[in-house]
């Protein structure tokens, strides 16, 4: 059965600890921009925890909202790429083929979530920091776009494993770096086509919404709205 990878982000569980952010950097060879570049808005975080203030002292409220590539079914980033660098994989991922990318940056403008990042320079790691680089993930050179891949290298590894063992992939036998690290289990990754999977179950929750769903991008990431105490306690 074909897989359809998806994720659920439970805003009620998310604590804003940003373990996912570091996990992503470590897993995906995301270079550190450094102060100057960061100040110029070139810091790369494939997943970020957005923070929105509501109200003022003494009753301020904060909502955290992890935002990563929504892996849209109808992704605005795909049709606009003249070289098919951003295209749709058979398993429904929005893949960025670094080698095809000529760097028009059109996809980044088309993306309503601003989750695509551009390599303004060749990435650099002060030796021996480069020893940490994950050999399963390409290092992106200057002039090309990059973005969250749903840790496609992990997906691939698990699929090869399952293939070798002549069996179906089991739900939760692997997950993305961010979901794996998330202490409060706010991020759940899995196969939406597997009706028994946790992600499939949760994404049909009545708290479920899609980020900017009104744009019709059909994201494969579902956000579960924060609950309220009163609702919970009174049934």
């Amino acid at each position, binding site marked *: 059965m074909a897989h359809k990878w998806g994720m659920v982000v439970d805003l009620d569980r998310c604590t804003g600890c940003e373990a996912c*952010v570091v996990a992503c950097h470590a897993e995906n060879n995301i270079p550190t921009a450094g102060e100057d570049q960061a100040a110029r808005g070139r810091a790369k975080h494939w997943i970020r925890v957005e923070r929105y203030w509501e109200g003022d002292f003494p009753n301020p409220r904060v909502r955290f909202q992890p935002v990563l590539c929504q892996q849209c079914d109808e992704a605005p980033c795909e049709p606009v790429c003249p070289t098919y660098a951003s295209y749709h994989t058979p398993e429904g991922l929005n893949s960025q083929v670094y080698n095809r990318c000529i760097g028009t940056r059109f996809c980044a403008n088309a993306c309503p979530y601003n989750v695509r990042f551009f390599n303004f320079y060749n990435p650099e790691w002060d030796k021996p920091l480069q020893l*940490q680089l994950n*050999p399963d993930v390409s290092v992106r050179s200057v002039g090309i776009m990059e973005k969250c891949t749903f840790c496609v290298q992990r997906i*691939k590894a698990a699929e090869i494993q399952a293939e070798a063992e002549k069996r179906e992939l089991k739900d939760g036998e692997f997950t993305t770096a961010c979901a794996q690290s998330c202490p409060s289990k706010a991020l759940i990754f899995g196969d939406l086509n597997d009706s028994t999977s946790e992600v499939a179950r949760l994404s049909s929750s009545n708290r479920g919404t899609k980020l900017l769903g009104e744009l019709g991008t059909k994201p494969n990431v579902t956000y579960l709205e924060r609950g309220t105490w009163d609702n919970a306690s009174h049934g």
Partner: protein
Amino acid sequence: MERRDFIKISALSGVMATLEGCRNAEKQFIRFVPEEELVPGIATIKPSVCTVCSAGCGLLVRVMQGEAEVVRRGQQGLIKMGLAKKLEGNPQHPVNQGKLCARGQASLQMLYHPDRITHPTKRTGARGSGEFQTINWDDALKEVAAHLGTLQASGSAHSLAFLSRPLSGQRVELISKFLKVYGAPPPIWYQPFDEAVLRQANLLSFGHAALPTFDLARADYAICFGADFLGTWNSPVAQSIGYGEMRQGRPGRRAKLVQIEARMSQTGANADEWIACRPGMEGVLALGIAHVILAEKLAPQAAAARTGSLIAGWQEGLPGYTPEAVEKQTGVSAAVIKRLAHELTQSGSAVAMIGGPPLAHTNGLFNALAVNALESLVDKNSVLSFTPQVGDVAPVQASLAALHGLSAQPPQMLFLYEANPLFSAPPALHVREALAKIPYIVSFGSFIDETSAQADLILPDHAALESWMDSVAESGSSRAVVSLAPPAVLPLHDTRPMPDVLLGLGRQVGGEVAKALPWATYDAMLRAALVPLRTRPGSIDVKTDDDFWDAAQTQGGWWSSPSISPPVPAVKRAPLSAVSPQFAGAAADFPFYFLPYVSQSFGDGSLAHLPWLQELPDVLTSAMWSSWVEINPKTGDRLGIKQGDLVEIASEQGSVRAAAVLSPGIAPDMVAMPVGQGHENFTRFASGRGANPLSILAPLTEQETGSLAWAATRVKLARTGGPEQARLVLFAGGMSGFPHEEQPR
């Protein structure tokens, strides 16, 4: 495309990534192949132990083959070896159950840090000049041994001191034993945000001189006084796991979290209700709530008889703490106090927690005891418990008194291990002057920081992943937990593990010391200490010690079968009555409470050298690479301070400058600064960046325990420049900040 090509491809990309790093990465590209068609390499997973904070989480290290420049017998060369690629939580570990926080994951960069000290080095220039030269290990060790010998011979063995950050497990044993038999005073553990007050309070209230464990999965209602238990306090990962459960882990049963603090912490940001309380009055507020409960008989008074006995007037139902009276002192309205009292008692099992700032006042212990009393009044389901311990090893207490002692009479010789008081102790404690008076300082540090820059000799320790690691969880689990792990990777540099060096020194010193420390290497000592656990019911059930030893290594430690040690009757003691907090600086001259808080990224500042954490946007301000001061927008308007302006924060002790961040989450009469930046000398990534709030703290201490009252300083504010002077780098909104994004909905 064919599988064969794939393998070539993955090999290529592997080589490219590991060896070339970024250099002309584009040339290395296998053209036109989608990322998802690369075939991953083979990884081996090894257990290890996280040493970043005291929680002691279990790690799994993802190790893959690569080529690295290493030093072997003084020879530098390229060898193929296993390289640590990623740190994950160990799913079997009872504390973090497969999860890991940002700081823990970033600690991987300590191993590969470009500014690690790679050889033993000897000071050549003046102290602190940072001029060192490389020497070989044998000479270095001979030199230290010689000093130890002469010191002992001259009968002043007692003037050897060992200054370290609080450690856990057998390292504590080793160091303590070494000093004991050598004839020196016990080691000095120092870190700025120590938990002495809470341990003391828990000893008094619950009979455990330890940090509490909260099984939040059992709670329906949590009221938390100042503890950032989701961010940095106690055992954050374990508590976050519990938090997730209490939010959405139990269908139809979602607990409420009420956070009481004057500056919104990461935990406060997640609370259903956030209540600003006057700093240092948290205890009074707790008693106000207790008053209502007792007065209206909302809970059996007996429930808290024990812990309540420590509070003056508890038996009489806390007459002095009527909601109205408490409102005057705390600024929290009587109505809210009453409501909280009802909510706490009406909703299943509740829990009251305290930690962080409320304890860092001169009346910290009182606040703690008061909240403990409230806790036992409302906690029907024993959400609070204490992690069982193997043996009766009390957790090491960071003690300011000892540091005072160090300053009072400086020793002849000082061992320094990962403690950095020159950065993290208020200058008013005069540690710098003390160090200047010490003739001979030996540091085991892996990095040059403010303190180890003063050392005469540096014997660089292995990185954690290169060493035998062990730790004992003080809290965070219902099991007794001893984490253990062999080295995950071979050493990269010409370093040696501190424990082995100490054992070696013991042998060279000879005599009693050598006898007391018979082990050749640290792992032998570990084995001797841990193997006895085999007979106890726990995670490993094997026949022989060897099997136990192997199993413990593969499992990443040993943990007992589940069992919680419930609170025991409180220590008999004269009841404490409310004491209002003292502050350094008159309210007239210094109108603002000053809160230096543990940074989400850098902890107490010891992680400021990790680029991943420097570029991690602070979740509330989105600031990276910079330090800032949080100011209420109203205060900002009043003082003409705008987002990003350069602000001077002055206390009686001195002043620092930082960029202003206008935050609705802080009381108008308070300003807060994260700790961690402002290092004078701490690797290329942290040096000369931002300001250090600890440097303007007054040396006030908590009255009962004598630990540092780091939240008891008052300051004044002045705008000294515009955004161009204060480099505030925000992730939100690129160059210029957007302090008040509203969700477009």
